[in-house]
């Protein structure tokens, strides 16, 4: 094992200072992905800055009605929180659709957003991977890629983001709060993760040393209905083959707010902006839903072995949209 320094931070500032003081550091939350990657040799941090004691373990309602989730809130607690279950069911459902009970007990909100792809080539040091080692090539492109991307990939990388939670956050218009040496900032959850382009080694827009301090869900106490649905190879403890989070609100018989995000189709949760634009102001009919989803998925370019993802994502989206819309109009 490569020796590494271990620093336990008590405050956000201590954490970011420790990170800055240790080149090659990584923040350690639940460790459910980072520690695995260290065992595989994919990650070899010079230092671990343990953020588990940071005072970021709370869920609080802000004066404007939005809900702030601390970065250290465990996935299990997030999914079970009454306000989350009541107001953002897609988020609760998404978190519960991921991993296993034991992993959700250990995994954190911030860590979930930073988990790495489960692409087998990324995890195997004996094979090329531009994400792990830029410039070495992509083993998956001509290899085994049933689980890989159909949207927004590049010739450098066809990996997908594995998070269920992030898909719901993207659809819910959540924002991710960051703190770094240059201060605090907030980025939309839907834009937090990147497409691979020429830099697949960069999963997110996070800057070096920045720490996720929390996630803010917009006010939604009387807000729209939402739901998450995931298709997978077994009933529990499997990553998505495709998934969808949908937020839908109607007024005067037409869609007045909609958020749709797909999981497991791309390098990031895929916010379906074209579909949303097509639906805004439209009556929530099956035909309108089909038209909108087809517009979005027309951009898909399946690889040899993952063409099934396009109809799968389509049917998941239509199923969830249909369930969220009042039965009378569908």
């Amino acid at each position, binding site marked *: *094992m*490569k020796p590494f320094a271990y620093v336990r931070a008590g405050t956000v500032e201590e954490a970011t200072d420790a990170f800055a003081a240790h080149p090659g550091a990584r923040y350690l939350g639940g460790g459910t992905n980072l520690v695995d990657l260290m*065992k595989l*040799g994919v990650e070899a941090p010079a230092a671990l800055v343990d953020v588990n004691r940071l005072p970021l373990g709370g869920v609080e309602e802000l004066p404007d009605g939005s809900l702030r989730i601390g970065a250290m809130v465990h996935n299990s607690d997030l999914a079970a929180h009454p306000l989350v279950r009541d107001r953002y069911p897609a988020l609760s459902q998404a978190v519960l659709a991921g991993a*296993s009970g034991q992993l959700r007990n250990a995994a954190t909100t911030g860590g979930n957003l930073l988990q790495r792809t*489960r692409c*087998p080539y990324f995890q*195997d*040091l*004996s*094979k090329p991977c531009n994400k792990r080692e830029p410039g070495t090539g992509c*083993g998956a492109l*001509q*290899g*085994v890629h*049933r689980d890989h991307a159909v949207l927004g990939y590049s010739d450098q990388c066809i990996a997908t983001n594995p998070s269920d939670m992030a898909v719901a956050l993207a659809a819910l218009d959540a924002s991710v709060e960051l703190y770094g040496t240059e201060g605090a900032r907030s980025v939309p959850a839907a834009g937090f993760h990147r497409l691979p382009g020429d830099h697949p080694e960069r999963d997110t827009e996070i800057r070096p040393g920045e720490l996720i301090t929390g996630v803010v869900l917009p006010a939604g106490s009387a807000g729209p209905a939402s739901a998450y649905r995931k*298709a*997978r*190879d*077994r*009933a*529990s*403890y*499997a*990553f998505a*083959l495709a998934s969808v989070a949908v937020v839908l609100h109607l007024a005067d018989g037409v869609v007045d707010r909609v958020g749709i995000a797909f999981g497991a189709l791309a390098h990031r949760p895929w916010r379906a902006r074209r579909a949303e634009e097509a639906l805004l102001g439209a009556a929530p009919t099956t035909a309108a839903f089909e038209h909108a989803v*087809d517009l979005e998925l027309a951009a898909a370019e399946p690889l040899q072995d*993952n*063409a*099934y*993802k*396009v*109809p*799968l994502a389509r*049917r*998941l989206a239509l*199923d969830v949209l249909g369930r969220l819309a009042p039965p009378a109009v569908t």
Partner: protein
Amino acid sequence: MTGTETVLGAPAERREGREKVTGTARYAAEFDFPGRAHCRPVPATVARGRVTGIDPGPALALPGVLAVLTHENAPRLAEPDDPVLAVLQSPRVPHRGWFVALVVAETLEAARAGAAAVRVTYEEEPHDVTLTASHPQAYVPREANGGYPAVSEHGDPDAAFASSATRVDVEYRVPPLHNHPMEPHASTAFWDGDRLVVRTSSQGTNAVRAALAAMFELPEDRISVTAEHVGGGFGSKGTPRPDVVLAAMAARHTGRPVTLALPRRFLPAVVGHRAPTLQRLRLGAGADSRLTSLVHEVTTQSSRVKEFVEQAAVPSRVMYAAPHSRTLHRVARLDVPTPSWMRAPGESPGMYALESAMDELAAELGMDPVELRIRNEPETEPDSGKPFSSRHLVECLREGARRFGWSGRDPRPRSRAEGPLLVGTGVAAATYPVLVAPSTASAQALPDGAFLVRVNATDIGTGARTVLAQIAADALGVPLERVRIEVGSSDLPAATLAGGSSGTASWGWAVHGACVRLRDRLAGHSGPLPAEGVTATADTSGEADADSPWSRHAFGAHFAEVAVDTVTGEVRVRRLLGVFAAGRILNARTARSQFIGGMTMGLGMALTEDSTMDPAFGDFTQSDLASYHVPAHADVPAVEAHWVEEDDAHLNPMGSKGIGEIGIVGTAAAVGNAVHHATGVRFRELPLTPDRVLTGLLGHEHPAGTLGA
């Protein structure tokens, strides 16, 4: 329980259960002998070629690294019978993942770092890892696994098929599958002077001792191999594996106790896999719904290291009466890891294909699939012509149909919908041969009134200790609690492995013999027992392995109900029901566990377990339990196992047939047939994952070819 009451068949509790659930049971890697070192192998990163250079320098420079063994400096070993054990003996790389070096270090962490630091260069050669039905290098071997002839033919099956009134000609594919026992393969070894002492995770330590004796050129009595607790094997621990050879080598090289526990990710390449099978079934039937021709042809793969031929067509020699038949195996030797035994080798993939084809034939005939099987029940074993010692398949089918509620079934495919779910039911038959091997045992009456039974059985999680104690108690005519049992060491009377569903029959036969003899001796004894007690032994050589005039097999019937989600193509099993005829059931509790464990593994084979050979790199892509999907709890619904009473005097003194494997045999076909009944779509490639099922559903709904809906 009184001394005269029989305990065979009773649901006696597992003797080592408390040790296991409290964590005090020790497994092979947990023997922390003083001065113990750890090691980690270095797998080859090319699919075919040879090692041209190994630089151990960077590894040896790391703190804690004790040694780097390679083909250049490792102890020279005598050639083993099983060539997969010839590790670090040559620069040849027969497949990706073959071990080319071993790092020994003070700690597991140092060994891992050392293994990452070893620099290996290769001369790489072009490789071929892709099995196809028409592979130019496929050939018909002399034998398939188990010693069965590769080909068996009766009559003129091609002409009979061509002239049959009803025909089914279909191809099935079963992917590579992996045993993945919960405990990875692990060994701890040390040299005590010129004696080799080994703790290992194995299904049979006599075979491990014999292999080590041959390779290290030692007499067997200077080697002691113990496997006290084994966390599953499913065939992959039926033979010695490289871990035990490497641990013994490293211990000799360093003079210290050494533990090698194989990382999970290494298992697919070095402990065997169920080879993929491409199977073509041709079934012809006459107007009376009786088979006129049965042709089962299998193409499979083996490695460059050795020939191992999954005997998938063999069960078709046993199941149904057909005047004309051909069962045939072909194998292609590719640059792939070496396949090996996995639970019900042959029967498991072969019966998936045969029983799926029988379902297809029933549909063609418009006949109930239970009745079709009953209609084709043979009077004697079709291939050998031998009479069955007992065969109660029909009873299993009828009893299963009754318990499952089969009679109310609407036979039309796609006839039952619940919202977006399509619901269906399916049936399949199962068979597994009765295997038995010679073993020895001793039974000792002790002065304190207890009895000590010793036999080198291996308890791989099945409850062997428990059932052997029951056999002994009955043979001795004493209460169960007075019987102590010692198993799991090559220092005990030699016995066969826990494999081929043969363990309980083989060990139990010897235990029974020793106990009966002891009882006779005690009957002639008067007064207190001497301090050393009274001992009797038994050896079933010549008896257990005598040729039998009988065809001896267990049979079973599987029923499954599934729900197929038409939105996603996800298939979930709602219930599984199996009825088995396997001679006398010796422990109702552990037998049930064996049956439902096998059925659960069959559920995984049907729905979730999939391994993909990467054509570019030559290894299996799914190398951990996050990607190789065994069923999770949420996948396993109501699973019921029942059995019918079966008296068979042609087996062994207990009247038992093996039960460790038959539970898996019919499950995949029953599930697949249920999916067809639910959807109207016939899937012929396992597993039935959403990508395949959704694509099939879309093709069914939109035959013109648009995947739009």
